[in-house]
């Protein structure tokens, strides 16, 4: 499973747990805050991805711009995993 699929599956797991309703199709340019997850949902998503991938890029990377879209969110994780491998 690639990172994008991992994130999408984690989003749907978290939506179920946190009683959020994800929008039908999440596109690369979908705004995170309009995907159906609220701030609690995002906090849970970051915690779940940390368990699965072993990284929390929001504490480990010096992110100067926060991700606003789904594609940017996935890119932050891709970058984090790459740094972890190095």
């Amino acid at each position: 499973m690639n990172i994008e699929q991992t994130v999408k599956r984690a989003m749907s797991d978290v939506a179920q747990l946190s009683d959020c309703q994800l929008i039908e199709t999440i596109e690369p340019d979908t705004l995170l805050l309009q995907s159906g997850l609220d701030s609690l949902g995002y906090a849970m998503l970051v915690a779940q991805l940390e368990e699965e991938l072993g990284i929390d890029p929001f504490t480990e990377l010096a992110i100067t711009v926060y991700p606003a879209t789904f594609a940017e969110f996935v890119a932050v994780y891709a970058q984090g995993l790459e740094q972890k491998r190095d």
Partner: protein
Amino acid sequence: MSNLASLLINRAVTPVIESASQSFSVEWLLELAQQWREEYQHLKNKPLALIYTDSASFSVGLLAFDGFCSDLYLCSASLVKSIDPSYQRLSINIYPASEQHIKLSQEDAEIAQKSSFRVDHAFTHTIVTRWWLASSGTSGQPKWFSHSLASLTLSTKASPTLSALCWANLYQPYRYAGLQVLLQALTSGATLVDGSSEDLITNMKHFAREKVSALSATPSMWRQMLMTNQLLNLPLKRITLGGETVDQPLLDKLSALYPDASIRHIYASTEAGVGFVVADKLAGFPVDWLQQGVGRAQLRIDENQHLRIKPSHKLDAQLEALIDEKGYLDTQDQVQIEGERVLFLGRASGVINVGGNKVHPEKVESIILSVAGVLQAKVYGQANSVLGSLVVADIVIDSHHDWSSISHSVRERCKLILQRFEIPVKLRHIDSLVVSPTGKLNRSDNV
């Protein structure tokens, strides 16, 4: 003796409150406040529960009844249920669509708006009103703490620069942080924009249109705003953080985006009021303050590594048990000195801060323990980079029961009774929990 109305009367620059559809000058709100006071003469020296509707209407109530009623309980529709039922309740709505209480004809309204303000005589009768603000208690029932206008406005300032600001309120004005924003805007002569929508992106677009230049929010709210891609549309000059521990990466991000803005971290609580303000863009506070004090407050660290604070204002009598013989209040915040800074580690009591919302572990534990088959439960916070902390529960079950059915029941019970932020995001099945000799759960390993 000053009341809120007298602080605003005859100001050179007067504030304005903006909603999505209307704008109210403070002269106009004072006119309405005078009418409310006249209409409710019987409330003189009596307690009143003021129910929040919107910032402008709420301000009318505060202006009318501060210095007039003995006590003002600042309520939402749900908080008012915890107030003594014999107290008068009042929900003011000054919007034209629901003017049940306002006895102004359109003509009167126009005259009042045009006239210079002459109602100061109406506010001359003044007593010191106790302002009551609710904090979430351990049992889930709100606890009420009293303040005075003087203590609530200790950290508010007025200057030409401050009066030029346009504030937006992301907090509820009947809570401590929201009231601070409202009072800062009113007493400094600034403009205040209501964050009327539930949706952050809609609010941010509204704030951008109104050119909001001052914003107060929890660190979690700031992180969320950073995710909207809209933050840079606001010409921010004053950035205020509070309600949670402020971390250095967030301060660095905000100061990189707004190098010229004043960035202030307010250390305050509903129970004790404002303690101090840190404005040097660094996490924690300077270690020198332990010797010198800050503003009119004195600080020290006790033998349990708790921060103690001695404010200049009088504290609510309910806090007596937490105040030592020299007048220092135990804030229950654990701190640690690192180099030249004192850094915050978390709450000693185990209270979990989820994005600025307090979660009492005992309350969540009691609900988990009410599920058949659960023997022990321990609820604690797990560090989270989005909301500061999330709630996690360790659970010991009777070996005759099945974990998947019990965890399902725990989730269902929690959903039924708790607010969303209080529900554990993770349930961990463990074999046993460490209990101290006094029979209490050992919370220190998770603080």
